[in-house]
């Protein structure tokens, strides 16, 4: 870890090597920066940005909302408002005439020191949306070609394959078939229906599931089979609901990816899309992508896994055989809790499944971010320590529950929490809801 240092007159609170940032910055010229900043500010922002900047009274009340700020012993450079000061205020004040090094720091802040979790919007008395301002900064960095390398690669994957992980068109049905065959050893009647037009539900997942979390597809198939649902998965691109282009603010790619996803659901004439336990994908389908495509809300109803499991348990389509004994706590992912208010449903599901549920403090909308979401974990190994040092409060919050298992119904949170658990040696297992549900549910069809 490099300590904070001043480079070309710009203060960096952390210094890491990242090819995307380092090489990208070398190619910048002051003229290009000025042109891009003004193009974005004039062409893409309006009343919101202007009013947010003019309304902020620099009171600092948003500080305590941020896990980076709290975890760095209240280092003021990590406070939400400080991130705006070090990026947008300066760009506006200088009318875009800022240095390449300034932009490198701006990209570092917006892409790796902010998870756009929107907790600070709940602490600002005026409701100023700092996550939105950071997204505008990311958008500028995207046009300037100074997005961190790993997440840029992921955005490229979306652009080329319409999925996050460079999964090829034949690998996808292949993986499903492999999971289907495995699951048939447990439930012989089980199928993973592909391309079934007129099914009630299209189930969509994120790229990493077929890539290295294939057991989640297995578990989902068991849940669908047991509940007796009429469901399908697409065999074509459009199966992946994830969207890192949303987080690099490459909105054009985000729009393409979401359009393919929705059009696939329409082609299959399903009544709704059910999606796996992922937060950012939900945000992209429910909040950002649909808006970019000028749909006020999602054009096909999208049900997050939490709501899906809730309905299954509530209606008795899935029954619990024996409750999970180990003590569990629940991490509230920003995109489905602050973003969709599923916290009570999540608690119902957890309480139905588990005998010993312990709340984290604070919880629900006020839960601390995982520090992995918002594309930060997707910025890859160069910024792993940014996440570890930036989220000590999460480790403390989990440890205080004394629970042995931390349930995280979101992929980014899940991976981020696993890193935190191992870095801070918490000895806690991180699990998805489906991991436990699969384990404790009745499976009448099983042999």
């Amino acid at each position, binding site marked *: 870890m490099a300590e904070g240092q001043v480079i070309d007159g710009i203060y960096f609170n952390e210094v890491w090597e990242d090819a995307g940032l380092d090489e990208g910055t070398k190619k910048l010229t002051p003229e290009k920066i000025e042109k891009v900043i003004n193009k974005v500010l004039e062409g893409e*922002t*309006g*009343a*919101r940005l*202007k*009013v*947010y900047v*003019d*309304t*902020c*009274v*620099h*009171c*600092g*009340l948003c*500080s*305590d*909302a941020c896990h980076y*700020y709290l975890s760095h012993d*209240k*280092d*003021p*450079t990590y*406070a939400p*408002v*400080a991130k705006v*000061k070090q990026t947008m205020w300066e760009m506006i004040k200088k009318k875009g005439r800022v240095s390449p090094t300034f932009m490198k720091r701006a990209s570092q802040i917006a892409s790796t020191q902010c998870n756009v979790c929107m907790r600070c*919007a*709940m*602490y600002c*008395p*005026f*409701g*100023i*949306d700092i996550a939105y301002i950071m997204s505008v900064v990311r958008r500028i960095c995207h046009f300037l070609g100074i997005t961190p390398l790993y997440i840029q690669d992921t955005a490229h994957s979306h652009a080329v394959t319409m999925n996050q992980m460079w999964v090829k068109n034949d690998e996808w049905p292949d993986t499903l078939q492999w999971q289907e065959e495995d699951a048939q050893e447990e439930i012989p009647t089980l199928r993973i229906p592909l391309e079934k037009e007129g099914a009630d539900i299209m189930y969509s997942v994120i790229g990493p599931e077929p890539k290295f979390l294939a057991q989640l597809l297995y578990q989902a198939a068991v849940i669908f089979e047991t509940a007796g649902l009429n469901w399908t998965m697409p065999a074509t691109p459009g199966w992946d609901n994830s969207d890192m282009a949303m987080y690099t603010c490459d909105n054009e790619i985000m729009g393409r990816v979401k359009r393919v996803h929705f059009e696939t659901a329409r082609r299959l004439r399903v009544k709704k899309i059910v999606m796996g336990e992922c937060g950012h994908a939900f945000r992209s389908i429910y*909040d950002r992508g649909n*808006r970019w495509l000028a749909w*006020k*809300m999602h054009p096909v109803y999208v049900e997050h896994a939490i709501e899906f499991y809730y309905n299954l348990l509530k209606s008795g389509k899935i029954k619990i055989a024996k409750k999970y004994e180990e003590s569990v706590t629940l991490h509230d992912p920003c995109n489905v*809790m*602050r*973003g*969709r*208010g599923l*916290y009570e449903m999540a608690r119902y599901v957890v309480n139905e499944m588990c005998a010993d549920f312990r709340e984290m403090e*604070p919880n629900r*909308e*006020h839960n601390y971010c995982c520090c992995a979401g918002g594309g930060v974990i997707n910025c890859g190994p160069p910024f792993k320590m940014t996440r570890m040092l930036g989220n000590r409060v999460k480790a403390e919050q989990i440890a205080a529950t004394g629970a042995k298992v931390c349930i995280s119904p979101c992929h980014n949170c899940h991976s981020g929490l696993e890193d935190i658990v191992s870095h801070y040696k918490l000895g806690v297992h991180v699990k998805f809801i489906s991991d436990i549900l699969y384990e404790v549910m009745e499976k009448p069809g099983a042999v």
Partner: protein
Amino acid sequence: MHGLYNFVRGPLAWVAFILFVGGTLYRLIAMLVIARKKDNVVFDYFSLFYGLRSIFHWIIPFANRNSRQRPIFTIVTFAFHICLLAAPILLLAHVLLWDESFGISWWTLPEGVADIMTLIVIGGCIYFLWRRLTQPEVKFVTFASDFVILAIVAAPFITGFLAYHQWLGYKFWLILHILAGEVMLVAIPFTRLAHMIYSPFTRAYMGSEFGSVRHARDW
């Protein structure tokens, strides 16, 4: 001295009120026009019910988590803002001026109460100044303009207090007081004091997003 008094009390007051009202209307209309043109999303998602729900949770002390976490700040800021608005509007001397000029008047505060409220505003300014100078998260985002704005707010109350108590020359403090009040009025639409104009809108918009789209609470 008397000519100067007539000038600040007469034409200059007109100028200040016209700039305040005109500037406020200008900022509001400009905001709505630019929102209509470039941020239509704001209107699409706006919800009066959820907007008001959010505003209520933020204009009532301790009705949101952040204000419970910071009890001292909450008490100071609420006392400050209430006194800042109420004292000048309900001050007997001010209402007499309205009566004298336009023949309109309304209920006024007992003078002793107004005096205490003035001190609360000045105390609030001192507290905010202390925060800006000592609290790292505030200091880091403080600019010279923040001190100027604080001074603009404090000045009418300090000079008004001195004029009322008639220490060291009533007329002198009175003229300064009127001038300071006029500066503050004009500053409201054209500085970050514009949060007075904008904050109901930003709050209501965030409340709308949280209420009708996110189905979550924003307090």
